[in-house]
């Protein structure tokens, strides 16, 4: 795969997160019941940054949780590569909370479907809304995001890679293209 285009740099990611934080506050005046839950791995780092941004604006620190959706995947029995199971870390009750679910890239919607099923096994929140850094289209399920950092048109031959300092040492979003014959 070769790099085709850089979509966001460090400042771009920061700005996108800040904007999503503002949109969330505008929609939900009372930040007291907000919790931010990221889908492992990069969704968790984004959730942490989003919570920090919300705290900066409102002075209220929302709780942050991490969701590992491996056990809820709909392709567990067909995938060739063995998934790594990690523990979800939700150290608070989500019942009656306003949940902002966070992931890096929204694509088919299957990951979000798995995350929704898992979240509801943890409790009954007031609502769940979805925030993603990148929406690249090609949904296979009726799922749509409530907050988007950036919409980008892609082809299915392309892969969107979100790289974050916490996991990759650098903040950037790039489009990679599969080379011919691959």
């Amino acid at each position, binding site marked *: 795969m070769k790099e085709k285009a850089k979509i966001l740099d460090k400042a771009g990611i920061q700005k996108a997160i800040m904007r999503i934080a503002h949109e969330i506050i505008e929609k939900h005046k009372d930040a007291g019941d907000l919790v931010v839950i990221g889908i492992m*791995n990069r969704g968790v780092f984004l959730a942490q940054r989003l919570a920090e941004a919300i705290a900066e604006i409102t002075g209220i620190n929302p709780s942050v949780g*991490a969701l590992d959706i*491996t*056990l809820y995947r709909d392709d567990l029995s067909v995938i060739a590569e*063995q998934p790594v*199971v*990690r523990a979800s*870390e939700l150290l608070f009750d989500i019942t009656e909370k306003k949940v902002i679910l966070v992931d890096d890239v929204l694509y088919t919607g299957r990951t979000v479907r798995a995350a929704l*099923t898992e979240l509801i*096994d943890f409790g009954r929140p007031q609502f769940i809304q979805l925030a993603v850094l990148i929406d690249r289209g090609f949904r296979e399920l009726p799922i749509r995001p409530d907050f988007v950092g950036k919409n980008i048109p892609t082809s299915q031959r392309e892969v969107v890679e979100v790289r974050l300092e916490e996991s990759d040492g650098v903040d950037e979003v790039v489009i990679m293209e599969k080379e011919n014959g691959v």
Partner: protein
Amino acid sequence: MRTAIATQRAQNRTLWRKKDLLGLRTLSREEIELILNTAKSFKEISSRQIKKVPALRGKMVVNLFYEPSTRTRVSFEVAAKRLSADVINVAVETSSVRKGETLTDTGLNIEALKADIIVVRHNCSGAALMLARHLGISVVNAGDGWHEHPTQALLDIFTLQEKLGSLEGLRVVIVGDIAHSRVARSNIWGLTKLGAKVVVCAPPMLIPEAIEQMGVEVNHSIDDALREADAVNVLRMQFERDEGGAFPEQLDYFKAFGITRERLQKAKKNIIVMHPGPLNRGIEMSSDVADGQNSVILEQVTNGIAVRMAVLFLVSQGKEKS
């Protein structure tokens, strides 16, 4: 949380390939650590409001027990159900085994029912291996004769790690009928692979010859063995297996090897006391020890579920035949 995710990723890089879990002797240190790390992730599920994940939905687990067992069978059943598998318990007393069907034939019949995993306990050493070789579906050994009881050892080790961290260099005493204990054998394989020093302690007649070749130390005095120990795993005295009167009398055994408060006072203050159950109070240990603050006996039961969930999940992903 960031560092927790990073370490979890680093630890889980080994892959699980085997379709069966037959014993700890044939596992590498990395495979044992993979099971333990996976179990760590699964433990959290039992504390949820809805204690169930859909990972094995649509899979069937058959508990095939040729020996009486309540806790191991129930633990496997709970583990399978928390993963959303369907569980069938085959009670051997009422099955066609009494009509002369062989173990392999029973296994083939269960496979023909399209089961995915058989959990087997049998009084013959090697029974699980034989079944695994004849079947394409997964086989998990829940105890075979005097040979191995891998999930018990894994849950013992999991509990030790939870309490003490790394096992490297720790001294673990196993006291009781070492000769007839599959729990002892699996523990010895697992503990030594993870770097612990194992001391076995029993009257000479209950210690098999040449056990030192497994890399353990032998000590016939429990007071001596306990002195430097970080943990003691107290085996059940299986008086029901004693046919030729080779066992000491129960009261004599308690006096010579029973774990009492007086004995623990001479050991390390935070020594961990384990027992695989069922416990004979007043024979293997006194009640005040079993219920005391060094005892982790009930935590072992809780951890058993997470460990068995990890094992069922991993073997269901494995393809490699034994």
